[in-house]
């Protein structure tokens, strides 16, 4: 365990699952509900449920570099049977300890990850890094309760989860069932705007807290041993990105990712690892198109619904799930840029 990190007080080790059960018991899952598309209002919805998708087979873990394991999340939405296991999640094994990032899209997804970790190593799981507040990344944290890890997040993550966590939990429970979703887990350690480091025993992980971009609490991480950059949802590869923070901010933060000069990058969605330069360039092209065409629409006096129909259509064939997210991204972009 890193000597630089302080254990949190033992009072943190008292999960209150009894409260959860009461909540769950009072929650009736409606069969009618499951036939509807339930929109997780207002947010990225890496997990807008799209029923009718075949339950996606969760792919296995890949060792993409020495001691670095990643499960590629399939480009689908949360649906009954896929545990919301749709984001790239995984872990890093150091000499002394294991660091998990991200922990998974539900309690069930997190449990799956934990059992996979135990097939590879018995080293203690000391750190769970949550890259941001979205359900497909954070809900797995509850599966690591018995490891009593540090739950590490952006300095804005705690507040974001306080505002949205319960809303996300309910919406996800409507799709997966409450038992699979688990509790909202708040971070126990935060990464300040200056960044932070975690030592797994000769293997230092550098954490960077970003300005508002994909969300208002995006964290990225570099593994000193391999130079791998874990971008979380600051980077989408192949799957159309979802905007839930700041469009202009995201374009700025992409420059900062680029400046880190990593060769290989683990995106939040897409292949387990990708060449950094072309992947960043693709996302930048989409976001810049979204920015420029939304600005143009606003300048031409187009309404938000007209803009939704026209903006960034040239990108349609380049991304999966384009029609599920682009209109929403345009809505977010319009709202941000109309005050310029």
């Amino acid at each position: 365990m890193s000597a630089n990190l302080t254990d949190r007080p033992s009072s943190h080790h008292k999960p209150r699952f009894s409260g959860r059960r009461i909540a769950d018991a009072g929650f009736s899952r409606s069969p009618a509900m499951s036939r509807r598309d339930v929109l997780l209002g207002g947010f990225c919805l890496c997990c807008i449920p799209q029923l009718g998708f075949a339950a996606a087979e969760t792919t296995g873990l890949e060792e993409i570099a020495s001691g670095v394991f990643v499960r590629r999340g399939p480009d689908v939405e949360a649906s009954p049977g896929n545990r919301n296991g749709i984001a790239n999640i995984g872990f890093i094994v150091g000499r002394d300890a294991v660091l998990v990032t991200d922990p998974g899209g539900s309690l069930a997804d997190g449990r799956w990850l934990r059992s996979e970790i135990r097939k590879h190593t018995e080293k203690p799981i000391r750190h769970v890094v949550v890259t941001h507040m979205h359900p497909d990344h954070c809900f797995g944290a509850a599966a690591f309760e018995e490891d009593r890890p540090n739950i590490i997040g952006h300095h804005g993550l705690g507040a974001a989860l306080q505002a949205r966590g319960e809303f996300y939990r309910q919406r996800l429970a409507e799709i997966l069932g409450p038992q699979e979703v688990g509790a909202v887990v708040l971070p126990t350690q935060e990464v300040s705007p200056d960044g932070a480091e975690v030592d797994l025993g000769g293997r230092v992980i550098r954490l960077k807290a970003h300005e508002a971009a994909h969300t208002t609490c995006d964290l990225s991480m570099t593994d000193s041993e391999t130079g791998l950059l874990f971008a979380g949802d600051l980077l989408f590869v192949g799957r159309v990105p979802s905007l839930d923070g700041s469009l202009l901010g995201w374009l700025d933060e992409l420059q900062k990712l680029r400046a880190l000069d990593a060769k290989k990058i683990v995106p939040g969605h897409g292949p387990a690892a990708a060449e950094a330069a072309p992947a960043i360039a693709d996302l930048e092209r989409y976001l810049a198109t979204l920015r420029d065409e939304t600005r143009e629409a606003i300048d031409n006096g187009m309404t938000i619904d007209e803009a939704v129909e026209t903006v960034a259509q040239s990108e349609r064939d380049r991304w999966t799930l384009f029609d599920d997210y682009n209109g929403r991204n345009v809505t977010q972009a319009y709202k941000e840029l109309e005050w310029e």
Partner: protein
Amino acid sequence: MKLLRNLAITALFALAYPGVASAGVSVIDGTEPERQARWEEISEYVFGDRPIEAGDDHIAIEAPRRAQDPALVPITLKVLKKDEVRAVHLVIDDNPSPYAAKITIGPAGDPSEIRLRVRVNDYTNIHAVAETADGKLYQTRAFVKASGGCSAPISVADAEALEGAGQMKMKFGEGDKTGSATLMIRHPNFSGMQMNQVTRLYTPARYLDHVKVSYGDKTVFELKGDISLSSDPVIGFAYDPSETGEFIVQATDTKGASWKESFVVPARTN
């Protein structure tokens, strides 16, 4: 080596709050008779026993069939008999507080196109009712698929959201859009259904309840709003471009805060 800051959180695994009904589960896809009964109940509440006629030749609604963002659903109301109609009512049947807005048109106003952004909490009918100068009511409706718009947390912390409240901007249409304008007002329009998980309290409702726009010394429109209007309300409207003078906007919210702003129409080049 930079340290991580430890957070003083009393419980690692936050308690879920048992009292919260799940948005969207209470009123599921109603059948047509249920929807009709709902509308009769609301219309009686809002309009008493005044008769409401089918009014597709008086008023039309444009709304997306499926919302991109349930907390920001753009709605356009088009009044077809603009010389007769003096007020327009907007009702979102299955919202917790269905009577979303009433817009009264003044002498410098033109009801032919009114654009609003609303929250939609469930699959619902949206009704628009046009009221003529002699008190007759005509309704039309649209069906919108969205859910969770009222309880959806706004994107920033409550205090931060209130910081710029009352800041305004007005955009004026040019060319063939002369005579149309868009008013933007910063305000979180808290619905009272947005919960803070740690305090386990709902942020109290606080929203713009009254907006009055005048041009020169004549009223363009007055809007009575409710929690169904999206945060940072944006209102598109038409006005009589033959008037002169300044646009004055007066807005108040339910906590008694008020704001006033004036805008000058850019000089026309034609």
